[in-house]
């Protein structure tokens, strides 16, 4: 039972990690990026090629390449593709409709390119795939190092993001934009520049999450959409623009999924996932961790 709970927490940490970037993108720049998972898979592939290269480098080193690439690509996507839509949209509803279509298109294009370039094979590599010695000797818990790394990465990134948003000047501008973009602009915030920045940072977070997740889950060019969906579920559960809420919602989802699978039936985990999501969407469409 404790093992199941811990497994749920670790899984939930991963969900939170995956959703952080999407929440930053959707919360600040108000653009729902459905091609999000593709950048995650891109990060995973770069890590894979780093490990499989001639020098067999540490996958953590791949972040040096994947984070800047994802940052620049996402910045370009926002500047070139999203900004014209933001400019012409009369209201948020119309913008949402446009953006959903364009990013779906982007998702198909990126997935197609990934399939052409990297084929549809399932890839994976082994990194830190041993039980944590401290936890196994002192508590008798078998927890793989790589999962622990992803969990700690999730907590670290969420904490860093929280501190940046809470204690820096850019952070307060970003928070202001989450609450009311028009008022923020009137207060002298350069909304377009910061939206692009937040969007790009969200993409970079996706690539980081992809690298961390790829250490223990195998992936292929077509698995990106699963992460997009998971991230979307977590973001909507947490409430748009809530950083710590994202981590909490991820943990909740992970625990409920594992416990449900354990108590009811392992075949139902995905159904439980979507069931929880639909329930929250119906009862509290603005998210669990928002002020009413």
């Amino acid at each position, binding site marked *: 039972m404790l093992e199941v709970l811990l497994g749920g927490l670790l899984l939930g940490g991963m969900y939170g990690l995956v959703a952080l970037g999407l929440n930053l993108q959707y919360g600040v720049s108000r653009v729902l990026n459905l091609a999000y998972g593709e950048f995650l898979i891109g990060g995973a592939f770069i890590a894979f090629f780093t490990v499989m290269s001639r020098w067999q480098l540490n996958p953590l080193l791949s972040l040096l390449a994947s984070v800047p690439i994802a940052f620049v690509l996402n910045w370009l996507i926002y500047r070139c593709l999203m900004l014209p839509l933001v400019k012409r949209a009369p209201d948020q509803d119309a913008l949402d409709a446009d953006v959903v279509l*364009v990013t779906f298109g982007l998702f198909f294009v990126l997935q*197609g390119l990934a399939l052409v370039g990297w084929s549809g094979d399932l890839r994976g590599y082994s990194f830190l795939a041993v039980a944590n010695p401290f936890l196994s000797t002192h508590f008798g818990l078998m927890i793989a190092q790589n999962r622990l790394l992803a969990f700690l990465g999730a907590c670290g990134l969420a904490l860093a993001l929280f501190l940046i948003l809470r204690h820096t000047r850019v952070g307060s501008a970003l928070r202001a934009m989450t609450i009311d973009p028009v008022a923020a602009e009137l207060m002298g915030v350069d909304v377009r520049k910061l939206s692009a920045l937040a969007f790009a940072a969200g993409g970079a977070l996706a690539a980081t999450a992809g690298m961390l997740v790829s250490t223990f889950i195998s992936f292929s060019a077509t698995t990106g959409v699963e992460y997009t969906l998971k991230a979307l579920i977590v973001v909507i559960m947490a409430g748009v623009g809530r950083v710590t809420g994202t981590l909490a919602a991820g943990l909740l989802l992970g625990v409920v999924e594992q416990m449900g699978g354990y108590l009811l039936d392992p075949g139902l985990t995905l159904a439980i996932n*979507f069931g929880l999501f639909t329930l929250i969407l119906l009862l509290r469409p603005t998210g669990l961790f928002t002020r009413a």
Partner: protein
Amino acid sequence: MLEWPRNNPWTCILLALGVLALALLPQLASSYVIQLCISIYANVALATAWAFFSGTTRYISLATAAFFGIGIYALAILHEYLPLPLALMAAAVAGFLVAVLVGLSTLRLRGVYFVVFTFGLTELIHQVVNWGAIKSRTVTRYIFTDASRVEIYETLLAITLFTVAASWYVSRTRLGYALRAIGEDETVARHAGIDTTRVKVLCFAASAAVMALVGAVLTLQYPYVDASIAFNNTWSFEVLIAALLGGPGRPWGPAVGAIPLVLLKDQLVGSLYFTIALGLCFVAVVYVLPGGVAPLIERWYRAFDAAALRQALRTGRLPEGWGAGWGWPRRLKLGLKAGLARLNGLWRL
């Protein structure tokens, strides 16, 4: 909107002849053509049904695959117990009932939440059906029917024609105006005395019934079905893009979009490039053709001066300023320009 051809006997006769030609097609064409036509009809019916609700009210639904799959499963289960026509009816009723339940609980979600919800709902139904199938040891359900390809063709043709005609008819009734009013501004519509919930749920369910029926008819040609065939998300996306490419604001728009997409898919099927082409279609629709192809066609139709042409046919001479003054290229150009002027206009779904 193009005028209802009631006052124009020639249009009526042409339409009737066209329908007759389509109905007689299986007597002449090869089975490849018939198969292609079945695919086209299915997509046209689905896209029209989708646009009937989502195009007018701007509630973008990704639950097409859910209702489609419900139709498939209803038929796969019931065709062993009921005669085929009854099983088909039951499939449509099943889609209708599920949609009423879904609609009553969810249609207060708007915008992106509705999109995501319908997508999640499809996955939820998929997973539950899959789990049920595994538990009851019927992961693949075999279909035993003696329906021939021609019968499937004729049934689908009838369903498609009915869907397009019904969508056209409803768009001209009070219900059609109510739907459009909801799409423009739901609060205003409610204040104008429209029972928005009833209208939305009813139309959502009606479009779902058509989707379920199309799914059920298509099932007849498969040897077996399973959950991942029935609840395949690709259906939702293809239908969505077909409707948006054609123009969801017109009853005949989705048909215009669905036909080229099916032909494109037929050429590229199995190739990775279909996903890329589909993606580029999505992007192109948003940037280049907001509103779809239908408004463009309509402008061309208006720019085309029917009276002048008729006179030219009667007198055997081109009217003033047609041949000499490059009149018709100018008209065409004006029509094109007017259509492209929408580029900078507001994008309405």
